[in-house]
């Protein structure tokens, strides 16, 4: 009965047609690149939006040439209206959080490198993998379409708090169709991420090549594995929340809208909904989402650092355990977003302690990185510079967490720019540095060409200084009580702060412009860069054992066998100072952890 038990998951040779090769491709590498380009498109949108916001915050009545082309009502005479500011702000956050920070470090690099790291030929369910990208793409298109509906995208902030988001267009422009489009797009996005996790988890558990035990997986693969477990649980809570929100709009239900609300002197027809319900559901997703954005960055940075430090980490497993504890704790701390939102004050205290506890695994990770740096032989290149930058930014973002974990201090700092500084340093800028680091590191493998190092270093220096100029002053604004999500500062005590906002705006325009260097370097190198050798960084993990870029079946028909822990660097007696994971040579003094 061979035909009955035969496995059908087989490729019949590489695809040849353009559509199967580049568009509806089943190849995880193509899908990874598709995700990367999607993230690139989203980050450009997100960054342009942040420019527009920053210009408006520094110079409220400034005309931005051409803005009326985007929205006639939102920017009459090219001057942004208050509501349009909020709409652009919401879209900035949505594109960045969902379509950049979730897709780039996790879905893009993860798709490309996870099967390479496990020595597999492809993801276990290539069709689901393809659907994962195209579902996400549809979600992206739906979100973009909200710019073009009559009253524009929603202005509710990416947290989409009810009842502002649930009562409909009576609450303001974009709160009708805009919210429905937003929630639809996010619900579709959740499905896409589920398909992603559906591939990542079985790949790690079932498709490892011979000799590759779980502990022998590289750090970034561990990070993607942990992230996909988080994504699986977090996104499957966000999706029902979005469904309930959509029903409140289109089916007249009252899940989130309380009774007796009066807007524009009209009594709203809803009754009895719970305001805090949305916040609970949203933050149950929202906090793990922060770690979904940052944990892959930690994995990538570990990978890049280890390779460039020419030595293994002090302990590979401690970092893995710490990332795992971050993932578990992230579900127990979500209430710290709601300390002053009307939740039971005793619950605030309950949530504050796991929040404080989460500093411990984060600190361990940073200390292990720094301890490994001690006595190493650090190679400086664009990738390692961005990885070091990641550590610095993550520390800065981490210490502001000391403040925000405490309910009494949140009385001062909740919903101020201090919070904006905190999450930009951690989940935004640090994560972006992780993406840059990964890009410079893996570009040769992904596109078979080297990126320009000089441009990469210039990009790093200007970006690193730039982001500190942008985001450090956010702390000061927050300390002074500057409330976030304001489009202008008409409150008396905030008026002296406008100067700081102007400084930040200039820094943001500058740092944004610097990213053009990266874009130029990226696209130029993709087609014209120097051809890359198989293993330009003298790295040890499996992806460097195949050609750059890898053939369609990853290892050219070779059956990979792994003999070592992932980071046999600085090994004496080896050819060079490193031993590849799949090299059968036995070495004295290898660093295999027991």
């Amino acid at each position, binding site marked *: 009965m061979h035909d009955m038990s035969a*496995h059908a998951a087989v490729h019949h040779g590489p695809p040849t047609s353009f559509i199967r090769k580049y568009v509806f491709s089943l190849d995880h590498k193509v899908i990874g690149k598709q995700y990367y380009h999607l993230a690139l498109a989203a980050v450009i949108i997100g960054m342009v939006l942040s420019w527009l916001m920053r210009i408006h915050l520094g110079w409220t009545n400034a005309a931005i040439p051409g803005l009326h082309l985007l929205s006639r009502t939102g920017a009459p005479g090219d001057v942004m209206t208050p509501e349009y500011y909020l709409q652009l702000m919401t879209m900035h956050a949505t594109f960045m959080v969902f379509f950049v920070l979730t897709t780039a470090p996790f879905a893009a690099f993860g798709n490309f490198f996870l099967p390479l790291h496990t020595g597999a030929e492809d993801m276990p369910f290539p069709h689901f993998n393809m659907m994962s990208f195209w579902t996400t793409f549809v979600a992206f298109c739906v979100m973009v379409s909200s710019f073009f509906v009559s009253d524009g995208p929603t202005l509710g902030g990416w947290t989409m708090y009810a009842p502002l988001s649930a009562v409909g267009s009576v609450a303001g422009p974009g709160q009708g169709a805009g919210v429905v489009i937003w929630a639809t797009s996010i619900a579709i996005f959740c499905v896409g991420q589920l398909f992603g996790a559906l591939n990542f988890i079985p790949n790690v558990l079932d498709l490892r090549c011979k000799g590759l035990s779980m502990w022998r997986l590289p750090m970034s693969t561990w990070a993607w594995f942990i992230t996909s477990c988080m994504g699986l649980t977090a996104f499957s809570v966000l999706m029902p929340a979005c469904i309930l929100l959509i029903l409140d709009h289109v089916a007249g239900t009252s899940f989130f809208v309380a009774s007796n609300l009066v807007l524009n002197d009209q009594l709203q027809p809803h009754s009895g909904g719970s305001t805090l319900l949305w916040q609970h559901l949203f933050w149950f997703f929202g906090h793990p989402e922060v770690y979904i954005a940052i944990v892959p960055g930690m994995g990538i940075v570990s990978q890049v650092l280890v390779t460039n430090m020419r030595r293994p980490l002090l302990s590979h497993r401690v970092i893995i355990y710490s990332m795992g504890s971050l993932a578990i704790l992230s579900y127990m701390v979500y209430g710290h977003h709601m300390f002053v939102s009307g939740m039971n004050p005793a619950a605030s205290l309950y949530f504050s302690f796991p929040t404080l506890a989460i500093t411990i695994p984060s600190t361990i990770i940073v200390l292990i990185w720094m301890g490994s740096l001690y006595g190493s032989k650090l190679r400086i290149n664009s990738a390692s510079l961005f990885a070091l930058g990641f550590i610095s930014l993550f520390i800065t973002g981490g210490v502001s967490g000391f403040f925000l974990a405490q309910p009494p201090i949140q009385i001062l700092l909740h919903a101020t720019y201090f919070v904006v500084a905190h999450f930009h340093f951690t989940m935004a800028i640090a994560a972006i540095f992780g993406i840059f680091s990964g890009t410079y590191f893996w570009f040769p493998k992904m596109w078979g060409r080297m990126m320009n190092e000089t441009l990469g270093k210039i990009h790093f220096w200007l970006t690193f200084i730039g982001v500190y100029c942008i985001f450090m002053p956010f702390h000061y604004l927050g300390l002074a009580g500057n409330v976030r999500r304001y489009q202008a500062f008409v409150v008396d005590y905030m008026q002296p702060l406008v100067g700081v906002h102007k400084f930040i705006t200039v820094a943001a325009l500058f740092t944004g412009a610097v990213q053009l260097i990266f874009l130029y370097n990226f696209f130029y190198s993709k087609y014209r860069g120097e051809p890359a050798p198989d293993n330009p960084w003298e790295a040890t993990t499996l992806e460097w054992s195949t050609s750059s870029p890898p053939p369609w079946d990853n290892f050219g028909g070779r*059956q990979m066998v792994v003999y070592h822990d992932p980071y046999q660097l600085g090994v004496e007696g080896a050819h060079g100072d490193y031993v590849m994971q799949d090299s059968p040579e036995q070495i004295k003094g290898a660093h295999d952890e027991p």
Partner: protein
Amino acid sequence: MATTVHEPPKIGEGGLPALGHSGNGGLRNLGPLDGQLRAVRDHAPAPSKTGIWVFLAAIAMTFAAFTSALVVRQGSALDWRHLVLPQILYFNTLILLASSVTLELARRKVAVFMGGIRNANDTPTGWLYGTLFLGLTFVAGQYVAWLQLRSEGLYMATNPNSSFFYLLTAIHALHVLGGLGGLLYVMGKLNRLVLRRSTLDSFSYYWHFMGILWVYLLLLLWMRL
């Protein structure tokens, strides 16, 4: 069963970690590169079995979220009106549980069938058709339940209880319909004699989970609404 197509290279004892921790080869061993389908032995669990647990975990989380929404919404509401569940739901429950039984019977048949005893008069497809029929009956029965509530004047937006009733039953019914799609896929594979045991097993986990989920939902609705 044939043995593996690619002979694995000989590995020194020291080079591999102890079994149990080991990656066992996975898909690489399953997919011969010449495109010829051949039965190959592999020690790694079939990814579809892991995959289905991932999928079920996501569904469980989704319904956990709906449940907590229901509990929180009930706690905040003064407009919670008791709702008498349509009697047909209990009949539907029996139908869905029966479909799990027929699926198990089909799975046995397939096991015997794959074991090599092929008997033209005793194909497993019959029980699978039975499962399909019972599944469709269940969805139709749910539809009748909605019609009954409608005739009582209870619509989606009437009160929170009816909102949750329609929401939970509809989302569950969608999952059941998805399962029926999967069943058709399985039957197609069986007809072409390319069905893998793991595919059928994964499908059966899904289908039994739908039954358990429905019993859970019924209890939840019965207690809370």
